[in-house]
């Protein structure tokens, strides 16, 4: 029996993979989008903050199906609790706000609903979607195609394609199959934990709390989560502390300037994740293979935000593949390198610059100086004048 052929097989249906698959399918390529999970977005490893611009840029309809709460700005705190308020309802009140004709700056989304919605969009665009399907490996064939081995529930199958898109997240195995250097350094992976809580008030701002005392090597956050809920979380870098994220989160909730605010909080969900505060992978492609999203380390190294960069990176990869696959050119690493070049021009250059900024901050050994640098960088990053507001 012959393997089914697809132009592209996308492994992993998160924001990057589903967006890549949707655009390819819209442009009439045959696409198989697989995910090993039974419920996309779960277990939740993400706070879910994303700018409105990031969604609009890749044609995602903004719908109640996945939005938990609109966001209008930021509150950046230093270790003692002094706050820089960047509230776009005040800064640009005619444009941003809850009223008619005004818009939010961004949203906190439910990743379970969001990721499912993005998969649905890909499916409606014509992609073949399969859950509970795990990629096992792939190999190049003599005819210029490749074979991807899959396991659907307990059944092993294989398909043929011209290109595999590895969108399998931080723990990417697709990159390892191709022998790429995907290893991340311990001082560049934030260990993150967050609680979804009841009984903590928020006011439409993403609140970011800096300071070595609360989140060594990273920052803590309080985000609105809709329906009166909030999420309280933090990320720490293990080389900056001997304690784990759980200890630091308890310390932050019980000892910080927010301890009264958090006094009646009730934990409704516990979520965690590793967030790469690293440079993007130097090489994000191989023969018949391109990485996107977290798998390629397309994560903002200052904020740890990865949804926008995943969506944009997916769109860029789809644009490249649409053009490339319309020709009879091979899909070896030499040809696919141009995809990374296109990504670099649009996003990568900025991400590497942010990585340099972040590296300079955390290279500082003097803790008060480092704290001040992080606070000031965060404050300027989210201001309307920031040169980086688009990523």
């Amino acid at each position, binding site marked *: 029996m012959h393997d089914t052929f697809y132009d592209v097989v996308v492994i992993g249906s998160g924001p990057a993979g589903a967006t890549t698959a949707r655009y390819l399918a819209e442009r009439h390529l045959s696409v198989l989008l697989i995910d090993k999970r039974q419920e996309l977005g779960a*277990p939740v*490893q993400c706070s879910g903050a994303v700018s409105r611009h990031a969604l609009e840029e890749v044609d995602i309809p903004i719908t109640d199906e996945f939005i938990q709460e609109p966001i209008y700005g930021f509150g950046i705190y230093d270790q003692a609790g002094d706050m820089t308020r960047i509230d776009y309802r005040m800064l640009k009140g005619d444009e941003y706000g809850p009223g008619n004709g005004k818009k939010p700056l961004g949203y906190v989304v439910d990743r379970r609903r969001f990721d499912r919605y993005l998969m649905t969009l890909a499916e409606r665009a014509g992609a073949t979607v399969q859950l509970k399907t795990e990629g096992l490996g792939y190999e190049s064939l003599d005819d210029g195609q490749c074979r991807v081995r899959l396991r659907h529930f307990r059944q092993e199958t294989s398909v043929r394609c011209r290109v595999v898109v590895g969108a399998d*997240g*931080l*723990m990417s*195995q697709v990159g*390892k199959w191709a022998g790429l250097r995907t*290893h*991340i350094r*311990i001082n560049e*992976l934030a*260990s*993150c*934990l967050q609680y979804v809580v009841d009984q903590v008030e928020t006011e439409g701002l993403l609140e970011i709390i800096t300071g070595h005392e609360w989140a060594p090597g990273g920052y803590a956050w309080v985000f609105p989560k809709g329906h009166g809920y909030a999420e309280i979380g933090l990320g720490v870098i*293990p080389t900056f502390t001997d304690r*784990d*994220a*759980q200890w630091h989160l308890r310390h932050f909730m019980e000892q910080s300037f927010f301890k009264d605010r958090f006094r009646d909080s009730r934990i409704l969900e*516990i*979520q*965690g*994740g*590793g967030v*790469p505060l690293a440079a993007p992978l130097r090489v994000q492609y191989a023969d018949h293979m391109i990485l996107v999203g977290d798998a390629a380390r397309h994560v903002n190294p200052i904020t740890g935000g990865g949804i926008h960069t995943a969506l944009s990176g997916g769109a860029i990869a789809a644009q490249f593949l649409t053009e490339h696959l319309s020709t009879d050119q091979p899909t070896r690493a030499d040809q696919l390198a141009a995809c990374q070049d296109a990504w670099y021009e649009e996003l990568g250059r900025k991400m590497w610059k942010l990585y340099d900024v972040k590296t300079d901050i955390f290279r500082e050994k003097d803790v008060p100086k480092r704290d001040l640098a992080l606070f000031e960088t965060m404050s300027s990053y989210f201001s309307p004048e920031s040169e980086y507001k688009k990523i």
Partner: protein
Amino acid sequence: MSDRTPVLFDIGWNACINCGACVAICPQPEPFISPFDTIAVDRPCDIACMLCEDICPVSTIEHTEVTSATNGNQSPYHR
């Protein structure tokens, strides 16, 4: 290949929040992953860098050393 004693990891499964950080930090060149998306627990790790233990947000990874007289499937291990 490290000159450290190989270790077998042990995960407190209910404490695990399935965050994936241990797999992300793991320097093993080949996939070293369990069916539950954690680092592998069914075979010894010969690198024994313990980065997975350091990154775990809830400290739920422990290990036992595997002596040359044993392998990953046999007792006894020692701490």
